């Protein structure tokens, strides 16, 4: 029971961070209709920014969020404007060209990082890395002992706050509403006077900025190496599929489910099998729930 609850807590904390990665990808997928397989590599760039800020200037990784996100935002805009847009225009046999393009971008980013920063594992040795809260400190003779890691909790809270800000941006501001309109129906949005072209650029930047922020939140609790991008790209698209393409709420649920599922597999089946669990849930979702969580939510709403 104790280990189960502990695993559940770890899963939720991990899931909150995963959700942030997934939202960035699902936004891009919703608006652009392309799968960004360079997503994890963008996160890796964000992590390196946070790392160097810490190593050179001693800036706390959590503060780097406000540095890394804007940089990633502009990197995303650059990628969309000069690489993805030209490809959307050319005519080719395979429509999957854009996906393959993002793979190329990811390769360049990952290997440039290897060349520039070597493939050493790095981490930010923050002072609070091993700090934790224990249940017994607050509740004498508690029946079970649970602990809450400090950096994990702070990262989780940050992720929730960023998600909240994003929700506010998407549902209350003009630009946010235009982005959602573009995702729902491109032609209708165009007819309503939405600058679809600009929305696409903004969305890609936004997605990149979000994943950059996620990178900053991950670095105090994780280690960093240039080829970690691939792993997080896979995680991001598993979440996206679980949640339903282009659905932000779905991505949050997807992230939580994946986080919990992964820590459960790690505890009860074995550490090495955690990635298999990840893909199992992915394939099951693809086959039995192709619309993702979003379709379930919609069905529920329809029934009401």
């Amino acid at each position, binding site marked *: 029971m104790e280990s189960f609850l502990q695993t559940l807590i770890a899963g939720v904390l991990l899931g909150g961070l995963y959700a942030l990665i997934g939202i960035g990808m699902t936004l891009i997928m919703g608006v652009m209709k392309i799968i960004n397989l360079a997503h994890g590599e963008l996160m890796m760039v964000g992590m390196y920014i946070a790392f160097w800020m810490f190593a050179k200037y001693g800036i706390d990784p959590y503060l780097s969020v406000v540095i890394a996100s804007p940089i990633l935002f502009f990197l995303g805009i650059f990628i969309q404007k000069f690489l993805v847009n030209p490809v959307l225009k050319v005519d080719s046999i395979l429509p*999957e060209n854009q996906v393959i393009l993002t793979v190329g971008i990811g390769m*360049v980013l990952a*290997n440039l990082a290897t060349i520039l920063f070597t493939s050493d594992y790095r981490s930010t040795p923050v002072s609070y890395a091993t700090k934790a809260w224990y249940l017994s400190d607050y509740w004498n003779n508690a029946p079970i002992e649970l602990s809450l890691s400090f950096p994990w909790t702070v990262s989780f809270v940050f992720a929730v706050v960023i998600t909240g800000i994003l929700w506010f941006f998407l549902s209350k501001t003009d630009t946010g509403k235009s982005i959602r309109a573009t995702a729902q129906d491109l032609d209708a949005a165009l007819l309503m006077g939405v600058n679809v072209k600009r929305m696409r650029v903004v969305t890609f930047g936004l997605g990149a900025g979000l994943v950059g922020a996620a990178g900053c939140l991950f670095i105090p609790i994780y280690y960093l190496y240039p080829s970690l991008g691939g792993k997080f790209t896979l995680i991001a698209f598993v979440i996206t599929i679980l949640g339903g393409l282009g659905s932000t709420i779905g991505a949050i649920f997807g992230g939580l489910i994946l986080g919990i599922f992964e820590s459960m597999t790690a505890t009860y089946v074995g550490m090495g099998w955690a990635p298999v669990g990840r893909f199992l849930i992915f394939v099951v979702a693809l086959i039995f729930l*192709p619309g993702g969580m979003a379709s379930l939510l919609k069905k529920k709403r329809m029934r009401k």
Partner: protein
Amino acid sequence: MKKYLPLIVLAVLAVLPLIGLSTYTMHMIILVIMWATVGMAWNLLAGYCGQVSFGHAAYFGVGAYTSGILYSHLNMSPWWGIPISIVVVTIFSFLLGLMVLRLRGPFFTLATLAMGEVMRVTAENLVWLTGGSTGILIRERTWIDKTHYYYIILAIAVVTFLVIKLLVRSKMGYYFMAIREDQDAAESLGINTTLYKTIALCISGALTGIAGAFYTNYMGYIDPEVVFALHDVSIVTIMIVMVGGVATLSGPFVGAAIMVLLAELVRSQLADLVRSMPSLGAAHQVFFGILLILIIIFLPNGIVGDFQKIKRMFRVGGACK
């Protein structure tokens, strides 16, 4: 002339070892032909049938491990892996197809990618069968000389080429292309799309598996990180075809030659630099990435597919005037 070009190329390739090339050159040529075979197999599924797979490492790896497991568990010659892998990989592809072929477009792409990764992690964790991350080492090499390996892979490549050429020119090939262009339209014209997609997947998988089994025999060592690699197998395969030419017969050869030679060129040119700065070992991957981006933007159908476009580019004051 054009009709006999494959025959001429084959004749040249057949006498190539007789002029006494160095072992190193032979190794390069063998790699080019092997990757061209995998590229042709991928091209059948993706280029002709329109199902872009990001998980050809799964078939390559299963083929390679068929050979390896026959050797390590049953004490058979790993060469048996080549015929046996056809059966094993075909069944494997069929089972995989049951799952992934329900999906379309990008969903299929992602599902195959996931499958490739699942196979890698499974191979790493099923230690009793695959030996885990330690891999399988073939202790006895059949030949020291590369010539035998060369003719074997050349034969495999020729068979692959013929199979794909015949398939593409047959009725089934046109069905494949109909599915690629518009699956719903193909379905409404009475083509059993699921059946033909499964056939394309099985053939493509089996051909890739043979190349994988050859890899085990040739390299003498396999481990999950190498044969189930996402970047070094699945994505390299895609790049070979993208660079060479999607839905062309000769594209994979051109692509494989360019990719293998480019990697080798960068590696040998930078060899001195790498010694002082080991991180430059990844430099060829950067070139791959840049090449892929440029090809997709400027020559979306590859060098062979957009050959006319290239010709036009270099003709001064041509038809565009």
